[in-house]
């Protein structure tokens, strides 16, 4: 499952993710990371049944953890099912079914937002990631 880890400026320089991984033995697969002077924000994948464990380890170190239930929002009313999104997505979130309907597997999304830029109909947007 996808989670977002928010790190405040006072603990930005501490290796809290490395510590949490070492302490719990739970693997984090980082897909997006952004750091500036004010804060840090990391999007990562963690196994569902290990989430609680990892979440606690990170929170103990001062991070804020949010579940990304809908990493990419697909507005089916705006979508014309052209498939523009398919070729730019690095993780194959989008596919066309046999009847050329668009299928969206949001669990694969790493929130890179390339598809958001690509979509001619503004039918794709990122959730929880403002």
């Amino acid at each position, binding site marked *: 499952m996808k989670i977002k880890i928010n790190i405040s400026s006072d603990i930005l320089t501490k290796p809290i993710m490395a510590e949490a991984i070492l302490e719990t033995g739970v693997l984090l697969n980082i897909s997006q990371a952004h750091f500036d002077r004010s804060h840090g924000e990391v999007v990562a994948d963690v196994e569902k049944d290990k989430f609680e464990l990892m979440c606690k380890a990170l929170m103990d170190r001062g991070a804020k953890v949010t579940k990304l239930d809908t990493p990419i929002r697909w507005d089916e009313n705006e979508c*014309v*099912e*052209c*498939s523009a999104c*398919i*070729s*730019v997505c690095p993780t194959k979130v989008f596919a*066309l079914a046999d009847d050329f*309907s668009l299928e969206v597997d949001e669990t694969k999304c790493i929130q890179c937002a390339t598809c958001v830029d*690509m979509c001619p109909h503004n039918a794709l947007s990122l959730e929880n990631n403002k």
Partner: protein
Amino acid sequence: MVKKTIHEINSRIRDGSVSVVTAEEMVHIVGELGAEGAAKEVDVVTTGTFGAMCSSGVWLNFGHSEPPIKMQKVFLNDVEAYTGVAAVDAFIGATQISETLGMDYGGAHVIEDLIRGKSVNLHAISHGTDCYPRKVLDTTLTLEDMNQAIMMNPRNAYQKYNAATNSTKSTIHTYMGSLLPSFGNVTYSGAGVLSPLSNDPDYMTIGTGTRIFLGGTQGYITGQGTQHSSGGGFGTMMVQGDLKNMSPDYVRAANFAGYGTSLYLGMGVPIPILNEQIAQATAVTDADITTNILDYGVPSRDRPAVRQVTYAELRSGSVEIDGRDVPTSSMSSFKKSRMIASELKEWIARGDFFVSMPAERLPKDVSARPMKQTEGIALVSDIMAVSVVTIGMGASIYDAAKTIMDTDFNHLPVVDENECLVGIITAWDISKAVSQNKFDLVEDIMTRKVITSSADERVAVVARRMDQDSVSAMPVINKGRRVIGMITSDDISKLYARRS
């Protein structure tokens, strides 16, 4: 030999006995029965396409105000419409963008909003005349309030279109969508097997006066589209239809990031099967239609073709470029194209839509010409400064400052011991270093990622790069990275000042 007339087909539509299939279904019927058998069996084949058609717009007649105005400039929701005709007529074009919202909202959005029943703000100005005294007008109108709203599109429904890719090292944003670096993806447009003009490439039944499906209602082909280039298989058509009867299912505003707005439009042409030649033509498949993948990374009218490809390959999800599988995206919707072909089929089967013979067929074997340009195309080598002062990377900041003062050059290319470009330093870089009390070497404060150009590039292309990278000067280098000149925004300004 099968020989049918439009009249016979229309009487079958009237009495409900007509046999109508989509162009996809026709492929199998011709496959089974052969062209002659299929021509006996089938009366009408329906086609459909739904994609971005930038060359679209609507003629609006607003009715006269009291006191009346002869509109000189008119804006709908801040998007300018063209009104260089009679007093209260204007043409709202799909790609015109909002004065305030820019690329987020354009003529296409105004058109969609009108179809959806939303009201739009009209603002018009005029110089005022004895017969039209009013100078400014502001009101709010819906589609219902207009006398006419006639969609009239100069160029729609390309027979086929080039596919797009990008050889450069950065993502580019085009009307074919985002094209990822190093041939990262391929985008294409067109309905292939369902494409109206590809199903009658000799225009045996298509031309001025052909009744069609347009935006969810009946419309007409009014003639060849602009840039109609039937010789190369790039035919287009000019169409019109009543916006008041159109549906947002088939008329949708779009934004292409970095390009602007466009209109996605649904269109379908019925092809009456008058003989076996026409039946054979409608059996065309995705595998029969070839196009070129062009490199949109080359900012030229003559984009080089990377390879030839069929619509079947494009629709498979990936194509091979240089031994690598590159993912493809359709920018038009095949699902919607199918819906259009099916809906048109239903209209005909129900007796709501009759086929027509054109008053004149679309012209064959013509080609669109590139623009005649009377001004020479300026190259970097025409306007660059050739006496360039460079500085070595090991020089001191004091040396650099002195060189700038002595020579009056604001930008100094920095070179290594082989005279190859390794950086650039400006008067501003020096001021910054001095203000921080840093008196190091040039190589410590120079900008290492230098934006450069080559002598054979066109000035218009280089000017855009300067703008995008926010620099005011670029070293001109040769293949060995030796500095052979310098081009500045001043040089470019002077070039255009001289011309006007």
